[in-house]
């Protein structure tokens, strides 16, 4: 919303400081995003009288004007054809800097010295026209600064208006806010040459006529109130300078006097209006009705629009002329030839407008305002203001007072406020008088009622519907910063902390400690298999599905790292994956995944300068770390392509191994794992007493025939060695062509918890182990 400080000053009857106003509005809830000084760059331009216009001696298309700037008369060479001797024009003398930074110099044009320039509207930044010099209707004496004669210099605030405050979409509304803080009244500025005899509209309940036009509301839900006025005998033409300047000050383009008048009222009072050319109306009738499915209308923008039965239309006797509250039809637009206009001033149901503009995929200045709710009570005043303005700038007469079709007048809305509740919610004692005074200043009429306040809600505040809304008004005007910030005793939350938090923190600690970086990938992806959940309205095909797993995203991240020549990549991610289980919502599961590739440790100069790369045993370790951290119950099994984790109930919850990737030749193998985090609690740690007796160690190199696994061998060793075996670990594997299978070496540590173990006892246990291994697995000791 563009706000003109000049306009606001006129409404408040005092000069308003732009920066102060911006700060106040920001702290009232309408943040000002920019403060822009406009047209101040015309300071050097003056009003000049052209005394004579002669043809340039050497150029057919140029003239030489004698220009009097109040003190001296100079020659100015001019290319425009509209300059007339004896009239006044904007004149930029030598050394003036024009908008755009162009500095004027005295220079010879085809042999004639030109001292400065007579300016077109475009050169002054005041319009599109650059063919002719800007014509002025002014009494100002030559030499008067242009900005004094034509006060277009202004300051424009760009104000962010929240969706609940339609009243701030116009100058009167913004002025009301400032009036509350400055404690001054708001008064509409007088319109030059306006008649003061505009009669109040005539209220009817269903239909009526105005200027011979019958007005009927068929769709009362869509259009609770419709007012119409007829003005005959207008002369369409450009608006006077002051009106054009007002519109330009808010960034609107002047069109013609009648349209400009309605736009002025829009920006002043937030009442969108539409002017129809009465002669182009098909038949003397306006009907507000629902569209019939299949109907079409060509809107002002030239587009053909298909209508549906839940849209409200403005129709004449023959056809649809406008989509109510959204856009007018092309047929009955006001043109240069228009002499009689029908002025529409209506209230359309916000929800109806919203669904209509959503269905038609078009948002207009009018729809934006109707959708947020305009001031239904302020309509008669807005219409009278528009009629007065049209008559002032375009002439014409009303054959009869305007018509006000208002089938079910709304009851005055009111809300009770309990001063005790205000103090309770805001946490500071506020007197009833203070509350009352605040509300009155903001435009809410207040009357005491018992121990409460009975507050009337003006039509421009559709957002205020209950007590708490008024409490906010009190707080807002008082200023949020005026409330203390004071910690008071508090009771602890009854809501338990999500156990996932601790589970995820354990994983995060483990993996960052192991040198991995926490990754964060998008949860939207291009595909994900048959049970991936589809998004109905994706931005593109690349993000049409919810991710089914984490490893795909991490693999893509690794490929991106490879693309920037990063060979060593170590990432882990904890996040939600989604699965389509046929229900309306996807099933969500939390998972942890990691990928590693490249050097296992940073290269160091004490080594060869190149560290070994990650291999399968590293990813197995990371996988085991994750499993141990989140769900210690279950087993990791070796599979054809890696490992899988199976919970005690038999469900497979995770996988680890080498990954397929788009790998450059210089990159190392990529390994990864992915695991559901589940909901198991970690087991409590129980202390095991430290051993007090010495151990006996035995190394055992075994030949494992093909097909015998280390796990199977360990199972047999533990079984046969009995309780004396304290530790068991593989320390070597050897494969040689001279043997079938391979040799694996274990170190066994024996210990008796209560006495010093004798060597012979360990040897006996070892013999039992060997016997058992031979019998059950065909595994024998490797010959030295």
């Amino acid at each position, binding site marked *: 919303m563009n706000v003109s400080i000049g306009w606001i000053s006129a409404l408040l009857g005092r000069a308003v400081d732009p920066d102060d106003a911006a700060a106040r509005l920001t702290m009232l809830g309408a943040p000002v995003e920019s403060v822009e000084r406009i047209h101040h760059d015309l300071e050097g331009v003056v009003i000049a009288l052209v005394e004579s216009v002669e043809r340039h001696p050497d150029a057919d298309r140029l003239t030489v004007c004698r220009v009097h700037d109040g003190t001296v008369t100079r020659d100015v060479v001019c290319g425009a054809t509209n300059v007339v001797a004896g009239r006044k024009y904007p004149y930029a003398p030598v050394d003036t800097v024009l908008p755009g930074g162009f500095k004027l110099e005295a220079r010879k044009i085809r042999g004639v010295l030109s001292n400065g320039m007579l300016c077109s509207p475009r050169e002054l930044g005041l319009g599109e026209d650059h063919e002719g010099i800007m014509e002025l209707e002014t009494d100002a004496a030559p030499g008067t600064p242009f900005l004094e004669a034509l006060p277009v210099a202004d300051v424009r605030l760009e104000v962010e208006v929240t969706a609940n405050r339609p009243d701030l979409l116009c100058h009167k509304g913004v002025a009301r806010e400032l009036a509350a803080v400055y404690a001054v009244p708001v008064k509409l500025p007088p319109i030059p040459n306006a008649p003061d005899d505009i009669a109040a509209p005539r209220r009817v309940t269903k239909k009526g006529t105005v200027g011979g036009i019958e007005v009927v509301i068929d769709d009362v839900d869509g259009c609770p109130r419709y007012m119409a006025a007829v003005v005959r005998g207008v002369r369409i033409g450009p608006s006077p300078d002051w009106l054009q300047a007002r519109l330009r000050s808010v960034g609107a383009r002047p069109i013609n006097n009648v349209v400009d008048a309605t736009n002025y009222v829009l920006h002043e009072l937030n009442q969108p209006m539409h002017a129809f050319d009465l002669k182009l109306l098909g038949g003397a009738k306006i009907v507000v009705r629902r569209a019939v499915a299949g109907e079409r209308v060509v809107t002002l923008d030239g587009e053909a629009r298909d209508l549906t039965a839940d849209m409200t239309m403005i129709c004449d006797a023959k056809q649809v002329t406008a989509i109510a509250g959204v856009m007018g039809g092309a047929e009955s637009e006001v043109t240069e030839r228009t002499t009689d206009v029908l002025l529409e001033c209506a209230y359309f149901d916000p929800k109806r407008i919203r669904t209509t503009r959503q269905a038609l995929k078009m948002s207009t200045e009018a729809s934006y305002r109707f959708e947020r709710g305009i001031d239904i009570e302020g309509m008669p005043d807005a219409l009278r203001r528009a009629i007065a303005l049209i008559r002032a700038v375009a002439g014409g007469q009303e054959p009869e007072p305007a018509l006000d079709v208002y089938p079910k007048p709304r009851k005055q809305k009111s809300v009770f406020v309990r001063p005790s509740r205000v103090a309770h919610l*805001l946490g500071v004692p506020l007197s009833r008088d203070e509350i009352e005074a605040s509300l009155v200043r903001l435009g809410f009429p207040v009357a005491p009622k018992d121990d409460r306040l009975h507050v009337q809600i003006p039509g421009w505040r559709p957002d205020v519907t209950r007590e708490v809304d008024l409490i906010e008004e009190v707080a807002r005007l008082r200023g949020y910063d005026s409330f203390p910030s004071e910690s008071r005793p508090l009771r602890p939350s009854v809501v338990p902390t999500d156990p*996932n938090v601790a589970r995820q923190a354990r994983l995060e600690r483990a993996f960052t400690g192991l040198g991995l970086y926490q990754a964060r990938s998008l949860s939207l992806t291009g595909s994900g298999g048959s049970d991936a959940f589809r998004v*109905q309205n994706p931005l593109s095909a690349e993000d049409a599905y919810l991710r089914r797993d984490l490893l795909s995203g991490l693999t893509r991240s690794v490929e991106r790292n490879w693309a920037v020549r990063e060979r060593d990549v170590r990432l882990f991610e904890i996040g939600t994956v989604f699965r389509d289980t046929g229900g309306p919502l996807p099933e969500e599961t939390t998972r942890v995944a990691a990928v590693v590739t490249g050097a296992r440790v940073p290269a160091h100069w004490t080594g060869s300068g190149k560290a070994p790369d990650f291999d399968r045993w590293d990813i197995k370790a990371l996988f085991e770390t994750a499993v141990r951290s989140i769900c210690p119950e279950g087993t990791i099994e070796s599979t054809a392509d890696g490992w899988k984790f199976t919970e005690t109930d038999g469900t497979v919850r995770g996988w680890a191994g080498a990954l397929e990737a788009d790998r450059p030749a210089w990159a190392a193998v990529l390994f990864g794992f992915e695991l559901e985090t589940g909901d198991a609690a970690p087991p409590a740690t129980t202390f095991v007493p430290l051993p007090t007796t010495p151990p006996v160690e035995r190394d055992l190199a075994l030949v494992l025939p093909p097909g015998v696994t280390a796990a199977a061998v360990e199972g047999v060793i533990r079984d046969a060695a009995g309780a004396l075996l304290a530790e068991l670990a593989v320390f070597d594997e050897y494969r040689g062509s001279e043997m079938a299978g391979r040799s694996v070496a274990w170190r066994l540590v024996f210990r008796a918890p209560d006495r010093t173990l004798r060597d012979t006892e360990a040897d006996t246990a070892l013999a039992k182990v060997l016997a058992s291994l031979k019998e059950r697995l065909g595994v024998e000791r490797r010959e030295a």
Partner: protein
Amino acid sequence: MTTPPHAQEELDLIAQTVDRVSTADAAVLAELRTEVLGRKAGKLTLILRSLGSLPPEQRRLLGARANQIKQALETAIAERERVLQDDTRRTVDVDGTMPARHAWRGARHPVLAVVDEICEIFKELGFTRVSGPEAETEDYNFTKLNMPLDHPAADEHDTFYLGPGALLRTHTSPVQARVMEQYQPPIRIVVPGRVYRRDAFDPSHSPVFEQIEGLAVDEGISFVDFKAGIDYFVKRFFSPDTVVRFRPSFFPFTEPSAEVDVQCQMCKGSGCATCKQTGYLEIMGAGMVHPAVFENCGIDPERYTGYAFGMGPDRITMLRHGIPDIRLLFENDMRFLSQFVS
């Protein structure tokens, strides 16, 4: 010549010389060795020689002690000699400026670290951390939060739909409703999590980002408590001298609503490009819980009041570290992530 009755005291004295070994240089060490262990006149050597003349019981006791001291002294001297030798080698051969041998270092994702930090601060104010589903219903995402879809306020939430009435949550606020339906106050929760908006990826927008929602509901919680809670957080998270500003705003689920700004850290309030010349940076939307939300969730709005807030850790992380492009927070570039090793 030591006589047996004095042998005990002599041994005690010799035992003390062991302590001198650890600081002795090579010369002192040689001296000590001769003085105590010398073959001919070493004090300990002499005592050991004299033992033969003692009665068996006394000989056994003193002999054990003398041997013990001898062993300790020999070990200490050998150790000291090794250290002295090492020292010599070190000063001659080792360049201490050569790089150390490190292990890989990992790091949390900067945004998720900020999420934890924020939650930890609110934990100090009694807030527990909870979570909720990312796929939600319109009912929880909008309706229960007093945010009807036919109101223009809904336009600010450009939504990914999963089906009729089903969507990807546009904020973590639905968890407010879920928690209030399940528990009666006192409720104090923070809810971090992923949220989704139908915005194309650009330097300041991502269709997926993190949000932290907070909710405090109890009897007697007022606007003053609200300001105190937020103020506490801001000063703990930024710095104790951070200037905080509360500004009226509009959110359907709070009333009164506030936008919370902190004074721009870059320019200290004088205006710069980061704060778009305003001197302040918006860090959260907040306010007192709207009574309609309480009503929708089965909590008596006359008895209970409360405050709620929501903030974007992505933006806060970008501000804190001077990260110019939100996409960096999703690319998992090692060159980026490795900058956040702490």
